[in-house]
């Protein structure tokens, strides 16, 4: 049996530090919102001419008075991602750019993807993203509150907050782009992390009923160990699937799968080291679950 409980305090300090650092990052550095949430224009361009490269594209675009233009390689050497804010919300901007590029490059390039999100839509998308995440946290809280005792719901929700905040903190630290698919990933993380916590909690509750003489400090450790191989196997297969998406699923899914990978790692960790320590700190005992059983 691994003595997870020996490190409860150490990891609580670490988690608190991670959350504080993430919050500081989110407040002071902020998130790198993509055009979905900031508004603007995105063009994915594929060239079949070596004349077209990041610097020549940057030159051409900077001559077009589009404001701040970002040009980056996208996956392979002849794919580029161009983003700008389109502040004036010009209507025929894509056509104008095409005409301009045709002059210098002829037709040795191709727009593979064009996205244009107006300011109104991006504000709405951001709002509905925030609502979706808040709503999912609230619903998880209610669900676990119905299924378990309040001490358990508090532990599960703290673990969820930890996973969401630290994942976003990593995105902020490395200035990774937040777009619609990242919101989808965060929601899935919420579901997954909850899933992981529930399995351990289910065992904790079962053991609480079984043993009256074991303190919660020991009992959580027993429960974590009993469910450990399941935790490892499920995390492993989920990570295998996600790694396959990350490495082979194409550029568009990279951000999404990265967020999910982070979420699964943090989710597995927090189920053990946050959710359970809350139970210990709230001195959950056999009485907690038996009282609940009586009232039901």
């Amino acid at each position, binding site marked *: 049996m691994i003595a997870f409980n020996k490190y409860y305090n150490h990891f609580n300090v670490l988690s608190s530090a991670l959350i504080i650092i993430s919050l500081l990052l989110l407040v002071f550095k902020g998130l790198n919102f993509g055009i979905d949430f900031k508004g603007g224009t995105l063009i994915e361009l594929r060239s079949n001419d070596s004349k077209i490269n990041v610097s020549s594209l940057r030159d051409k675009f900077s001559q077009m008075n589009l404001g701040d233009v970002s040009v980056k390689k996208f996956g392979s050497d002849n794919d580029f991602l161009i983003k700008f804010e389109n502040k004036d919300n010009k209507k025929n901007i894509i056509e104008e750019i095409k005409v301009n590029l045709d002059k210098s490059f002829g037709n040795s390039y191709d727009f593979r993807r064009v996205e244009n999100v107006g300011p109104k839509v991006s504000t709405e998308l951001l709002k509905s993203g925030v609502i979706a995440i808040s709503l999912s946290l609230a619903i998880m809280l209610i669900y676990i509150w119905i299924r378990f005792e309040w001490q358990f719901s508090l532990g599960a929700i703290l673990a969820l907050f930890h996973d969401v905040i630290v994942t976003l903190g990593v995105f902020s630290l490395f200035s990774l782009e937040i777009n619609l698919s990242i919101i989808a990933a965060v929601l899935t993380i919420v579901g997954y992390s909850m899933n992981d916590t529930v399995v351990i909690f289910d065992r904790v509750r079962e053991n609480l009923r079984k043993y009256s003489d074991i303190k919660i400090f020991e009992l959580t450790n027993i429960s974590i160990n009993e469910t450990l191989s399941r935790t490892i196997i499920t995390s492993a297969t989920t990570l295998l699937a996600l790694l396959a*998406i990350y490495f082979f699923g194409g550029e568009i899914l990279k951000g999404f799968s990265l967020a999910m990978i982070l979420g699964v790692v943090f989710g597995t960790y927090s189920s053990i080291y946050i959710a359970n320590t809350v139970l210990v700190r709230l001195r959950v005992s056999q009485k907690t679950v038996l009282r609940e059983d009586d009232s039901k």
Partner: protein
Amino acid sequence: MLYFSKLRIVFITIFSLLFVLIASSNLFKFDDSFFDKKINLGLDLQGGSYLLLEIDNEPVIEQKLQNLTTTIRNFFKDKDIRINNIKIDNQNIFFNVSDDNKQQVIEIFEDENSEINPYYPRFKSHQLEIEDTGLNLKINFSRQGLINLKTSSQDQAIEIVRRRVDEVGTNEPNILKRGNSRILVELPGLDDPMRVKSLLGKTANLTFRFVTQNEDDRFGVEKLEFEDGTQEAVVSKRIIISGENLLDAQPKMDTQNNQTIVSFTLDRVGAKRFGKATSTGIGKQLAIVLDGKIISAPVVRDTIASGAGQISGGFTFQSATDLALLLRSGALPAPLEIIEERTVGPDLGQDSINAGMIALSIGFLLVIIFMFVKYRLFGLITNVTLVINLFILLGVLTLFEATLTLPGIAGIILTVGMAVDANVLIFERIKEELKDETNNILAFDGGYTKSRTAIIDANITTLLAAVILFFMGSGPVKGFAVTLGVGIFTTLFSVYFIARLFTSLYVAKNKNNGKLI
């Protein structure tokens, strides 16, 4: 938990085979229409354009209020009530009446059978609200009045949008209402939406009006620019004919001077009016005005009584074709603005499909190898179940002709990774049971029973996340929510019926062979 009746086994087999068959209709062609269904590919996979249009209702409201001032004036004139100082300000109409009449006017507006202010019994609201500000009377649209106005302009606009898109001839466009002032247009397979965009961006409000020098024309005048921006002309506000009078419009080649023109034919009312105007206005310039800009202003030389005419204005063949198309499909009730556009080229779509399939195969393979190494025989059972699960998932998506997007493929891969969870929970539990239980049947039965609450709780949490995502997400993300959510049900089915069936058959045969797992 381990017992299966014969009937149940037959049912499970048929059910699974049915979905495998439905799923395979994506690869083969079936004659039967029930089986011949296919998963729809989202725009991000098949390529195409997604346009979100917003109707700018401000001009419509202004116009309605403008008309309303006339209506109010005439309505009360018949009742011998004088309306003074009527004006529009910030979407409100203000006017004065004498103090004796004030109450009567307010009552007329607030009467449920009011002739001038329609009452919507269903919403318990009038179209207009009236308020005595002390200085004057104020009228504005009620909340319900505004909603009705917006919905009706949306109804008109979607019809015109549909006609214009159909004229361009893309395959299976999808045109839907969003809220009460937006229209969603999905154009699968359309690589370059430039033409559709420019067609939808025009209101196509066509009027024929005389150019006038007389600044105090009875109907008022306005100064308008020519389309090429070189000249201006003063034009009367009196409309001779408008786009509504057109029966048809076609691009033509004028053989005399080799110019591209748009020829049109008018309906009876239009022909009559056009004939009258051209007979009295010989020598005058008739301006053809489209969306507030003059296309051309030819001099009237003859009376045109046939109801047919032509517009010239330095068109290219393409611009003449587009103008004819716009005129045929009619004017939009209000300008449209494209507030969101997402276009994916077909080759990127194909690349995404390929990448998705490779990721799915590799993810699947990794999970299968892992499970086999970890659990051997029971790993094999899990893997066979996983394959069937995948087919059932595809079968369900096919049956409902769901839309598969790139994030949707990611959802399927994720389902593969998470689907083994339930089986793992069960197998681990059985292992624990076998620690103090020598009877295999009892241990397996206990494993299934005791793991059930954890499995159900765990799956419900993921399902809740998927449901929220489905209702809050848009487009591709919705596709992810669908595959993730459906995946949970198919996983539970395959774990509790298929994997359990295999397990029970194996255990029944080998119950006396020591620890089985």
